[in-house]
């Protein structure tokens, strides 16, 4: 028989204002096994923990029930307090009488009744608790960063600076990501590549960082501290060790008609290419779908002109298998497709462009050499219209429900840069709200209005109508002046919503990391654990977690690195002892548990069992303790009741239900 102590917390007035805590204490003393019960204002305080310590010692308690807040808040606190007093920490149960009771009820009588019932269930569970001991697992001191944009670069640098080796896996031929496509950055207007290129160089030169470009994560297995990852290095068709990066192959390549991904399809590239001049590594790849040699077998010009003999048409994809202790996801974003927004005429006119396309047009290395010009006729625009919130903040099925966060600021930036460089070009911005929370952000936007004369109009655009004379007729509303506006523009720029990189779904599935309805990776706690995935050992960096600008991305990248370093610095991890196990005599080998296990922790073995004197070999489920996260999906699926979860056994849960229904 257990000797149970019940401790009821007031949580100031959080609980005590709605629940009669004295009544809960009184009722607890009638419960089987309970030898001690008391209440206190703040059980989690030093003084409260001291009460628990004293009671354990004096009353020789073997189990505790703490009626307080959610176990997410203070389960660890009370388990540690119990351990200090010599009790097994898994002999502590929390009855959540705050979030599940006092906060959601108003009537004191009803809330007290519910608190008593919750206490009773917890007592019933403790009566069947058994001491548990966590196991240990080792930590591989190497980190994997998926994505080589500014988020991945910063995370990799920070982890490597702490002395741990890092591998970056980047899908495209070069690291750099979206930031490498930008011309200038807000709110200081410094050139994006000027600040990014040194970081790319640093990553490339760092002795502890290894970059896999033109590579993708193929599979992930294992668990926190001990992941095994297969990386597919796609055939580059160019020998990384021999290539000098001279660029002659790209000049001579006769196949030059492929739309350039880097320039958002505004111009074309050769079949053998590096995405941009500062690419890291500065080694081209052959796009086999565009290469004449691969399509027809004839050509081979790149091979002939390459002085270094680096071209290798026979290269094949290579799979690298590596072990990691921590994985950081930094897969970034893309702009949404605008095919559902026909009213803005994006598909009808070359002069309706997205903001990212404008970045490339404004960039000296872009398709127009940095000259602002209409893509239809090359003329300089005199009237420019920017449309905000295209596909952001939508409640319909066309767009995204969230605010993309960066558009207000980059539009102010574009408007300012254009007014600065081309003073006789008028710039009009149609906005719904201008959102500028950030250091020096609102001042930046006000400068666009006050110093650069950008015309901001509160109201959305209804339609953009291409005119026979090549102009674009913009029909919008001015809600403050209460009038409808018809404006002839030369160019229209759409601030399209951003969305997580479409590949992130596949990656999240491999990592068993959870993802929200917008495909953003979910953090373990929205406020207190914003850079960790609920899946242990997986960390989040950059826009894959939610829209953010560069300063925020860099901050979060550093935070994700710190969390990864905190993990890598440990030699061993304690594993959760609340894992599933199967009863060999009850298991019928049906495989249903293995099918529902999200962690791949269940395998089947042919085992010899002794079933009441009958020896026979049976196919039986075996749980890998290190992989099992204790979710309990298998225990409820198992048709024969063979699967049971330590610390949450079927008997315990039924005892709780019985106690509640008593």
């Amino acid at each position, binding site marked *: 028989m257990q000797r149970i102590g019940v401790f009821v917390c007031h949580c100031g007035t959080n609980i005590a204002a709605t629940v009669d805590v004295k009544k809960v204490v009184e009722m607890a003393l009638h419960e089987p096994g309970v030898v001690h019960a008391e209440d206190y204002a703040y059980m989690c305080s030093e003084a409260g923990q001291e009460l628990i310590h004293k009671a354990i010692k004096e009353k020789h308690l073997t189990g505790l029930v703490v009626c307080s807040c959610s176990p997410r808040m203070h389960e660890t606190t009370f388990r540690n307090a119990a351990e200090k007093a010599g009790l097994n920490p898994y002999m502590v149960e929390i009855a959540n009488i705050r979030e599940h009771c006092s906060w959601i009820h108003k009537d004191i009588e009803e809330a007290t009744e519910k608190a008593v019932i919750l206490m009773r269930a917890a007592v019933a569970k403790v009566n069947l608790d058994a001491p548990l001991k966590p196991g240990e697992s080792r930590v591989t001191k190497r980190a994997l960063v998926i994505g080589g944009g500014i988020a991945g670069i910063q995370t990799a640098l920070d982890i490597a600076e702490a002395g741990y080796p890092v591998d970056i896996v980047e899908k495209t031929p070069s690291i750099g990501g979206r930031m490498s496509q930008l011309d200038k950055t807000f709110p200081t207007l410094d050139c994006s590549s000027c600040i990014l290129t040194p970081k790319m160089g640093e990553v490339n030169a760092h002795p502890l960082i290894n970059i896999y470009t033109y590579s993708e994560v193929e599979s992930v297995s294992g668990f926190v501290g001990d992941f095994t990852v297969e990386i597919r290095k796609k055939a580059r068709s160019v020998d990384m060790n021999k290539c000098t990066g001279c660029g002659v192959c790209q000049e001579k390549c006769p196949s030059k008609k492929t739309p350039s991904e880097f320039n958002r399809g505004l111009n074309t590239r050769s079949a053998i290419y590096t995405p941009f001049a500062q690419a890291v590594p500065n080694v081209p790849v052959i796009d086999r779908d565009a290469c004449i040699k691969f399509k027809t077998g004839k050509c081979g010009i790149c091979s002939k002109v390459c002085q270094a003999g680096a071209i290798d048409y026979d290269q094949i994809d290579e799979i690298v298998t590596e072990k990691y202790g921590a994985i950081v996801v930094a897969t970034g974003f893309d702009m949404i497709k605008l095919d559902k927004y026909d*009213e803005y005429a994006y598909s009808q006119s070359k002069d309706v462009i997205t903001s990212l396309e404008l970045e490339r047009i404004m960039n000296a290395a872009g398709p127009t050499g940095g000259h602002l010009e209409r893509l239809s006729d090359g003329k300089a625009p005199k009237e420019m219209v920017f449309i905000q*919130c295209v596909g952001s*903040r*939508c*409640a*319909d099925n*066309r*767009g995204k429900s969230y605010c993309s966060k960066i558009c207000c600021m980059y539009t102010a930036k574009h408007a300012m840069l254009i007014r600065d460089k081309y003073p006789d070009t008028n710039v009009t911005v149609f906005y*719904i709200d201008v959102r500028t929370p950030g250091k020096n952000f609102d001042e930046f936007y006000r400068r666009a209005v006050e110093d650069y004369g950008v015309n901001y109009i*509160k*109201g*959305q*655009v*209804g*339609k953009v109508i291409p005119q026979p004379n090549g102009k674009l007729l913009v*029909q*919008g*509303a001015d*809600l403050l002046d*209460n009038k*409808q*506006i018809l404006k002839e523009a030369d160019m229209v720029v759409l601030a399209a919503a951003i969305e997580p990189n479409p590949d992130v779904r596949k990656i999240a599935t491999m990592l068993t990391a959870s993802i929200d309805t917008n495909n953003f990776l979910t953090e373990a706690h929205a406020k207190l654990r914003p850079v960790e995935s609920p899946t242990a050992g997986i960390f989040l960096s950059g826009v894959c977690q939610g829209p953010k600008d560069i300063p925020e991305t860099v901050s979060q990248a550093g935070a994700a690195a710190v969390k990864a370093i905190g993990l890598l610095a440990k030699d061993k991890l304690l594993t959760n002892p609340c894992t599933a196990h199967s009863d060999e005599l009850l298991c019928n080998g049906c495989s249903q548990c293995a099918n529902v296990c999200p962690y791949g922790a269940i395998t089947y073995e042919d085992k010899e069992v002794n079933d009441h004197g009958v020896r026979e070999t049976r196919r039986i489920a075996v749980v890998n303790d290190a992989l099992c996260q204790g979710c309990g999906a298998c225990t409820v699926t198992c048709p024969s009741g063979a699967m049971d979860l330590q610390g949450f056994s079927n008997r315990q849960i039924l005892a709780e239900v019985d106690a509640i229904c008593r």
Partner: protein
Amino acid sequence: MKTEHSRAEMIKEISGVNPLKCMKCGKCSASCPSYNEMDIKPHQFVSYVINEDIESLVKSKSLWKCLSCFACVERCPRDVKPGKLIDAARQIVVRERGKNYLLADDIPELIDPDTPQQLLVSALRRYRR
């Protein structure tokens, strides 16, 4: 005569629109071909319903200037659809009048089978006053 509150509730019920979803972007007014003819502008329909000033709405010129082209319904990013609100306000006028000018059974013979149903219903509400 119903109260303004119950008329506002009726407009919400008939239209199926929750006017509180509006974020005041003005895309409806930007899209409206009859904008200049209207005294109450499409984006204002929403606040008239929220503020339960239905009397002004049903007395407005806008009520009968709306062409039911549904550009605002099509483009509204917040699923508020002012065109549906104004259509519901018209229904209220019609219902209060309590008369039917045509019997339902007479209608099928009068219409071209290619005419979209929605257009037909809106047109009937508009022109039978």
